[in-house]
């Protein structure tokens, strides 16, 4: 079943199982059911707890915060992740702070879901992956949807815990089939799942056993899906063997699976769709360089989009955003160094 539908079913299950779950967001009510249809049917089934809102991102986040402080489990939808900027104060100065500054006398477990990412020609203000600006906010978890993580498990984790979380859903994942590992495989790739305590699983994918890989690739979200296609193709066509590491939680990071992989390969390429510089990949480069300095055979390669606006024109957009071609080029370059 496709991701948008599975996510919708996950939310339906959460609303059905737990009276404390409340959904807020712009245009999420039926018959429209949200810009990407994730919430279709939910306002009919749960009219009190699924509420369509005006265009008021600050208040959506702030009201969610109040609900959470009062013991509810709000899930706020951001129609386009670009407008997370309008929630930034609520996230940084309210939601993420309350539990600690109130000395654990309150919790504020708001779940914010944001549709992110480009490649659809929506242009400069409806295509961005702005999550890097939220990485490193103390006491905020940032989790990225992927095809390898069942949203039911991810949301069960969110709803079980008392921390706030930003969940980024790349728009191009919505129509894709979800493919969590089954019997140690994802399609033709070998899949392993690293479960560090208290962390969502990190999925590792490779065409050959991990010990035989020469490159580690770290990616999340839609870019992880593209990277999986590239490593499969390069393995078959060129015998370039890379291991793809796909965390669900991108901040704070569970570095253990990355360290395990890089200790074998000695090479790390990070991939993200957000703009280059001060990014997830730069943090990964810093951490892995510090922890595995002697093991690295070449500098960590950080692949990210051009730090500029995202054009609407298809060819121009493709020049700016990371896509399969950039990922493939980075892997070939890393392979060349390895010989």
């Amino acid at each position, binding site marked *: 079943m496709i991701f948008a539908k599975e996510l919708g079913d996950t939310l339906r299950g959460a609303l059905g199982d737990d009276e404390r779950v*409340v959904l807020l967001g712009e245009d999420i009510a039926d018959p429209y059911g949200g810009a990407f249809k994730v919430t279709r049917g939910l306002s009919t089934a749960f009219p*009190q*707890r699924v*509420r369509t*809102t*005006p265009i*008021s991102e*600050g*208040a959506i*986040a*702030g*009201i*969610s*915060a*109040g*609900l*959470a*402080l*009062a*013991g*509810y489990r*709000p899930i706020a939808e951001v129609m386009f992740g670009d407008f997370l900027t309008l929630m930034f*104060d*609520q996230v940084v*100065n*309210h939601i993420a*702070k*309350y539990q*600690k*500054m*109130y*000395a654990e*006398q*309150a919790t504020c477990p708001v779940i914010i879901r944001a549709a992110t990412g480009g490649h659809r020609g929506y242009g400069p203000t409806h295509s961005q992956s702005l999550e890097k600006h939220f990485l490193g906010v103390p006491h905020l978890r940032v989790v990225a949807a992927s095809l390898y993580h069942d949203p039911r498990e991810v949301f069960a984790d969110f709803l079980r815990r008392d921390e706030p979380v930003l969940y980024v859903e790349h728009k191009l994942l919505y129509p894709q089939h979800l493919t969590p590992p089954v019997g140690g495989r994802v399609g033709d790739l070998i899949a392993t799942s690293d479960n560090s305590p208290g962390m969502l699983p990190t999925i590792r994918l490779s065409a050959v056993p991990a010990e035989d890989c020469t490159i580690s690739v770290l990616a999340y979200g839609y870019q992880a899906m593209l990277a999986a296609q590239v490593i499969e193709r390069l393995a078959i066509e060129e015998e370039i063997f890379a291991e793809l590491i796909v965390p669900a939680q991108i901040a704070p990071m569970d570095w253990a699976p990355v360290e395990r992989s890089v200790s074998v390969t000695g090479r790390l390429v990070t991939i993200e769709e957000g703009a280059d510089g001060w990014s997830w990949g730069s943090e990964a480069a810093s951490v892995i360089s510090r922890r595995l300095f002697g093991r690295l055979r070449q500098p960590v390669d950080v692949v990210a989009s051009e730090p500029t606006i995202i054009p609407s024109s298809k060819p121009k957009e493709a020049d700016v955003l990371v896509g399969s071609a950039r990922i493939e080029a980075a892997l070939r370059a890393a392979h060349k160094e390895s010989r």
Partner: protein
Amino acid sequence: MSTALAPARDGTDERLTGVPGEPLAHRRYRRMRFIRRFEETLLQLFEEGALNGTTHACIGQEADAVAVTEHLADGDHIFSNHRCHGHYLAHSGDALGLMAEIMGKEAGVCRGLGGSQHICAPGFKSNGVQGGIVPNAAGIALANQLSGNDAVSVVFIGDGTLGEGVVYETLNMAALWKLPLLVVCEDNRWAQSTPIAANLAGDMASRFAAFGVPVREVDSTDVQELSEIAGAEVAAVRSGEGPRVLLIHTYRLCHHSKSDDERPEREIAERWLVEPLVVHGRRLDEADRRRIEDEVETALSEVVATARASA
């Protein structure tokens, strides 16, 4: 109706919050005097260098806190701002917890992590970001509505905060959803160093009226008058008709935070003549007033000594 004679919370010092059986007028004076002297003591402690950071005293606005909190019951929630001591003390009577908090002690309500403007206690929260707490209070109101109880959520803001956009996003949603939210806007004429004339276009009350939110506007420092009005407003919100605004025109007699005041001296001097303790104090016998003041003084000095000695 109102719980105007509700007893003080368990564990609070009756000398600060109200002695059982005493007339309501005495109790109100006692509570306002308690808040006033607490704030003056804090300012003194700052001068001594005993405190860290900053503090925003509410000297001159005690009547608002006492009047509104008189009508709140268990289950109701107050969300307050940077100038929160009066609201907190009127609500909880917890002088020691707040004093220790501002002193940065483990014994403080938030173990010294929050300090003057970030307080959490049952039924009470505050945050130092102007405006951002308004949707938070509305979220608590939504939780009450969903739970089907008749609790109300009260949020205190200042006139300067009317410049923040999220206030209007929230008013719109609160009105659409008929949330049990009471916004108490304390217009003390100044936002830090800026007079309302330089901060606010148009008319204050019309801003709320634009969302169809009823506004009750009053220019008073009289706790008795304010309490009557606040009681009616809280009751109306509790009845489920949706949000309301209580707009109180008042005055801040002290500086904004520690020692920043460029306001005309004459303007301030005039307001000392009509400040809440003077206005309400006239209703009390001289002897009663003295006795209450002495009791508050003794109780507060014990609080300060305990807070100083605590870890």
